[in-house]
């Protein structure tokens, strides 16, 4: 529909704008689409905002350490202290070191993998609520917030990975073949599952603030279901087979073992679950499908964000 122009004067700039606007299609804003039909649109919407994603990722890092003197160094201090405690308490005092050679490398490999997952999930969960100022004022695909939280968790992870690489080289060296085979794949598994959980939890947390405390508890359980301070051999030796099968369904356990396989040179002959590589690939495929479903659920839930915040 168009309107007849009234007789008032219209500037040349205005005429030009009218002409260019007339060429553009009308775009439906924030519509109620079906569960699957909106997928292509919301995915392309997210892709169009990738520049903003990167900006928010950097902001996340910047804002986190804004008023602190040590700033970014804090991301390294926490895992290093963790490493030291596990190394001393579990390795030396409880004697896990005797069963696991080069315990420091072993612990740090598993810990790095787990930390990527846990920071992704924990910071994603609160991300939409933390950015309520933006959510309530402007439209942008809200998936950006958990994704930016994932992005900043990933950057933290990269610096830990650097320490892991240097540490492993100094202690025992690194074999390139398992590294290339297992580490990138494990990383992808963690990211995909982390984003899946992050999307669902960040959206539900808007409606139910208990989620963030639930996540804290869940992550403690998750930590002990992932072999980082103990070895898979300890499980394999004592648990009944059905429990082992169940244990190996946990994607973070698989990914942590993938990291250990990649970095922990002295564990080449240790006990590993059968078909670890295939299991990782399967975990990735299942994760991608679930991530897609999670995005669709997120899209449903995000429609009332602005009024719930």
């Amino acid at each position: 529909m168009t309107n007849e122009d009234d007789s008032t004067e219209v500037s040349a700039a205005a005429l030009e704008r009218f002409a260019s606007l007339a060429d553009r299609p009308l775009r439906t804003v924030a519509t109620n689409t079906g569960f699957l039909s909106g997928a292509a649109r919301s995915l392309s919407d997210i892709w169009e905002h990738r520049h903003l994603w990167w900006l928010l990722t950097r902001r996340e890092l910047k804002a986190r350490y804004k008023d602190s003197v040590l700033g970014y160094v804090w991301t390294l201090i926490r895992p290093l202290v963790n490493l030291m405690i596990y190394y001393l308490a579990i390795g030396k005092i409880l004697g896990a070191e005797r069963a696991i050679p080069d315990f420091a490398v072993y612990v740090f490999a598993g810990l790095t993998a787990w930390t990527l997952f846990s920071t992704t999930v924990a910071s994603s969960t609160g991300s939409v609520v933390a950015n309520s100022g933006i959510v309530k004022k402007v439209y942008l695909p809200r998936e950006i917030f958990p994704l930016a939280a994932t992005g900043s968790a990933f950057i933290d992870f990269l610096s830990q990975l650097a320490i892991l690489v240097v540490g492993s080289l100094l202690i025992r060296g690194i074999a390139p073949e398992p590294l290339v085979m297992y580490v990138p794949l494990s990383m992808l598994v963690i990211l995909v599952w982390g984003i899946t959980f992050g999307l669902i939890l960040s959206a539900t947390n808007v409606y139910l603030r208990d989620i963030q405390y639930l996540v804290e508890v869940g992550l403690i359980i998750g930590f002990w279901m992932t072999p980082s301070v103990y070895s898979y051999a300890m499980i394999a030796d004592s648990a009944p087979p059905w429990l082992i099968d169940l244990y190996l369904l946990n994607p973070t356990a698989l990914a942590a073992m993938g990291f250990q396989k990649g970095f922990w040179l002295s564990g080449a002959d240790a006990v590993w679950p059968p078909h670890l590589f295939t299991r990782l690939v399967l975990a990735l495929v299942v994760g991608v499908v679930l991530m897609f479903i999670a995005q669709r659920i997120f899209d449903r839930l995000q429609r009332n964000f602005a009024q719930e915040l």
Partner: protein
Amino acid sequence: MQRPDVIQIDKVSKKFTVHKDKSLKERIVNASRSREHAEEYWALKEVGFTVAAGESIGLAGANGSGKSTLLKVIGGILTPNGGEVRTRGRVAALLELGAGFHPDLTGRENIYLNASVLGLTEEEIDKQFDSIVEFSGIADFIDTQVKFYSSGMYVRLAFSVAVHSDPDILLVDEVLAVGDEPFQRKCMEKIREFQNEGRSIILVSHSAEQIIDVCDRAVVLSQGRIIAIGEVRDAMSRLHQSYEKQIRQDIDDAEAKIEILDGAHERLCSITNVEVAEGLIQQADGLKVLISGDTIDVAVDVVVSSPLEGYGILLDIETLKDESIFGMSSRRLQLKLPPIEHTGRITVRLPHLDLGEGDYSFNVAVTNAAGVEMDRKRHCALMTVRSDGMTSGYVKAFPEVLVGPVPA
């Protein structure tokens, strides 16, 4: 030249559900009664209109009438439960305070963040940066975290970023009221510049003058429905009429309470009705208006408990901001009014009332022989004044402008 539509709002409805319990415990405990704990109401009900390119629309209505919700639906921030909104071109929204600033980041960082959110690329922001800072007028604080900003500074920066994002549609929600006067002027200038450049503006405001001043058309909402749409002055008059009912109701309620308190002594005289009995003209759309310069009769009906003598009448014409712009008193005019037995109609004739365009109401009181007020009615008989639209203000005049040499 044909103007394309930039916004099409098609039967948009939005339902809000208010949960009274937010925590898991409360929800589980109340699971079976969850219906009782969730209240639903329609913030918007089948609202529909279109906005053409270059058009400015004012959105008005009482608090809670759905103005802000509608703006959020247009901006894509809320998804409607029914209906659809279609837009063309780039939309920038200035909703309430700020526009999505992060308190821990500096003004500079927030400009980049906010402008990206509004759709600018980094190079575009680099190019615009100095102009954004200059327009905001807060160059000294640009490297301060915005959590230390005053609300005025916040709005300055937000407005500045929004207008520099080259929007085709600008949504403004009441934010301008926060800035100081020089900044408000600057904003209004910018808005005019935008109008001149053919951009569309949707302005939510409680100020009728601002809407009349800025907008071509106005939409008046009440309880989520459109009650008036069209030419600004008519739409605003409709709004004032709906307000008037509310104000009358409030006053009557307050007076009813007082009556109970001093119900012991009976009222000697009470005003039962005030209306403009003569002089109004009915427009085509049913609205009764006074044509500036016409004569009106204001009729005041009274009931007395015992015959009344030596009384007086006071009448003020007030603007909607409660400013009295005209006042008369029969005592000052030294008029002796005939006695009233039981009921009577006192008519005050106001010849050649040269009021400016707008909405006015009357404030009427009856006093006894000693000059003490016996009854008063405020905000009665809302009256809309129309004229040629050539001048503004509370007084209508027909100015002439002459140019000549400066007298020696």
